[in-house]
């Protein structure tokens, strides 16, 4: 309420002031929150409800309790896909973040000391920043198709190159699960690394110069500077990136569906999609719910493990 209309008796009452403050906030957030509830929260809850039914796309959805979850527990195909997804969840973030950090560090402080500055990027770093980000701009479907050709056994870029040097390249997507997983990891990392280069560059850019100068005076080399100065100071960004990349890895759907033939390997979202395709909507949503729980658990674990005291600078 505007001050003019506020009755005199409550004007200086602390409880009223608190109420007024919250009313102000809620007033501003009402519309976005309503949207969020309608388009994000409610589908989630509906999916959870459907996961307890035998809905098959028809007009009837019977409540079946935990039947879908029981079926999942006994379904070898689900466990196979989950094994692949878990491997991605563990390896992909580490691989991508390490690469992203290395590139970002090189761009911001890997160069020679020019113009009397404590740190500088390698030559051409402003160009690299842009180039690394290219894969982010491409549509996932295009990435999957193009890389599918690159990995082609007979006429692909990789095996073609290996032929030139007299090495008989393997069948990357020819049925061997390990090779398939390696191919998938390469593509995922390649397509996401640019995002993390930008994220970490921004984080490193906000680290004050004088800390670097001090490190330089103390005789720290590049690696030492990175581990003792840069990494601790950008830890928050790393943790955020780790969670985000983990969720992305769990969510690898389009790349796997388009690029990897289904008999080589499947990630859980592809398995889920196939169940939808066969009209098993109830079962498919229950797999979705398990994925949701997994993402949550993963985020919580990383939050716990990655929890360090914040360094104020």
């Amino acid at each position, binding site marked *: 309420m505007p001050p003019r209309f506020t009755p005199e008796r409550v004007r200086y009452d602390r409880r009223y002031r608190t109420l007024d403050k919250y009313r*102000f906030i809620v007033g501003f957030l009402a519309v976005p929150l309503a949207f969020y509830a309608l388009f994000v929260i409610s589908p989630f809850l*509906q999916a959870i409800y459907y996961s307890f039914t035998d809905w098959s796309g*028809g*007009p009837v959805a019977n409540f079946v309790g935990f039947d879908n979850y029981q079926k999942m527990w006994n379904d070898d195909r689900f466990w196979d896909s989950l094994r692949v997804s878990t491997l991605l969840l563990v390896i992909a973030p580490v691989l991508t973040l390490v690469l992203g950090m290395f590139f970002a560090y090189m761009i911001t402080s890997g160069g020679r000391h020019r113009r009397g500055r404590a740190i500088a990027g390698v030559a051409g770093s402003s160009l690299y920043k842009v180039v690394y980000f290219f894969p982010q701009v491409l549509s996932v479907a295009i990435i999957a198709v193009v890389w599918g050709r690159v*990995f082609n*056994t007979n006429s692909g870029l990789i095996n073609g190159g290996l032929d030139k040097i007299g090495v008989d390249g393997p*069948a990357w997507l020819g049925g061997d699960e390990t090779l398939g997983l390696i191919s998938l990891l390469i593509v995922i990392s390649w397509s996401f690394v640019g995002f993390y280069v930008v994220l970490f560059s921004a984080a490193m850019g906000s680290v004050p110069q004088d800390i670097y100068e001090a490190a330089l005076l103390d005789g720290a080399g590049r690696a030492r500077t990175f581990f003792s100065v840069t990494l601790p100071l950008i830890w928050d960004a790393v943790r955020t990136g780790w969670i985000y990349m983990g969720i992305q890895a769990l969510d690898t759907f389009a790349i796997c569906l388009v690029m990897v033939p*289904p008999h080589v390997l499947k990630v859980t979202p592809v398995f889920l999609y196939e169940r939808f395709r066969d009209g098993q909507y109830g079962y498919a949503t229950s797999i979705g719910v398990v994925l949701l729980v997994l993402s949550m658990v993963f985020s919580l674990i990383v939050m716990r493990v990655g929890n360090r005291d914040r360094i104020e600078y």
Partner: protein
Amino acid sequence: MGSTSVNRREVMKRAAAAGLLAVPAVGALSSCASGGGDENKAEKGEKSKKNPLGVKTDAGLTVYIFNGGYGDKYAQFVTDMYAKKYPKAKPDQKPTEKIATQVQPKLVRGKPTADVVNNSGADEMNIGKLVHNKQVAELVEVLDAPSWDDPNVTVRETLVPIVEEMGRFGGKACYQLNIALTVYGNWYSKKLLEQGLDSEYPKTWDAMLAVCKKAKAKGIHGWSYPGGHPRYMFFSMYAMFAQRGGRDVITAMDYLEPTAWKNDAVKDVFEAWEELVAKKYVLTGFDGTEAHTEMQTAWTKEGKCVFVPDGSWVENEAKDTTPKDFQMTVGATPSLDSGDKMPFGTLYAPAGEPFIVPAKAENRQGGLEWLRMMYSKEAALNLFKEVGSLPVVKGAIDGQKLPSGTASAKAAIEAAGDNIVIPKFFDWYNELFREDFNNMIHKFMQGQIGAKQAMDTMQKASDRILKDPDITKIKKV
């Protein structure tokens, strides 16, 4: 600080908290899957001699066609026929590559906008589920109706018998109608086989191995395998199961019987192929999603292999790489020995390109009428001219000049007579073929597993489907 001063950081923090706690009204949950359920207000007109299905002449008609290898021009021909007969109806044809995405949501809600649907392609709707949910109309009415060209003959009498059989789901009722015949088998170049290798088409497995040996001496492979799509091997194996053990073997597979994949006939066929694989007669290295075209190019353009497992669409699909004098031909699967239960020439030749009419279509009779027109002689001939495949209408392409592959496919069907075999589980339990057989046969073709594990894997998959409450089972009648 003013009375309502809140600093920015606090707003953000609170917003996040509020977002997590914002729970929508439970009312949102009641918007359930249970759509529809209202009376079927299908448009109906007067039945007459000229209008045997009782089409309401001015009711609109919407046709959804899968726009894939066949395109949709062949269907536009029929839609134009409809427009000519019912000018007030203004039929509308919608080509799409994503049939399920376009059609299924409305169909599920019981308010389909489509009156007839070409349910085909990678994004086809699961027909078994549609039948189970009573979302597709019975089509016997079309088959019983007088045919377009001759009112004294029913539509059924103008078609090859497998059309009705393939529309059945364990009962007499027919829910889908196919329009083209696909012939599966061993495709080869007659020129290469007869002139290059100086051989006849092998009618027995021993002869097949002999041809492969000859080919190997010439530095080419007898067989090829599209590793990106392992399931292609089924096209050259399936008829052999029936040939070896009789129809009982394949019926047992269709009805998921507990020993369907464990009998001697299946074992013999797998062992025959195992020998072929072990002798390294198979050309491999076609991986990834374009495997089939890579294989077909190696076969047609480069002449690297004699036989490919394929279906009759291959002639059209590979026409850009096929030399003029290639003489593409399809051969039926070889017999194993004189102990076979069915003769050489037994053919895996189903009808394809299924059409359905939604049960609650607004102009259901119009949809049925459209199908009756599709089965007219002129539409069947036009289908052949557009896409080059064999129509299911008897005699529709008599007297036409056929390309080599189509001619051999037609000859193979005529030679087979009644010995046409069709895997019903292909429609009923598609995952058994598309996933389980596909994954198993890849290991098999790579030599990682033998006949015994192949049989075990398939039986286990068959049992899993039998036990799965989410999959509607078709009971033996």
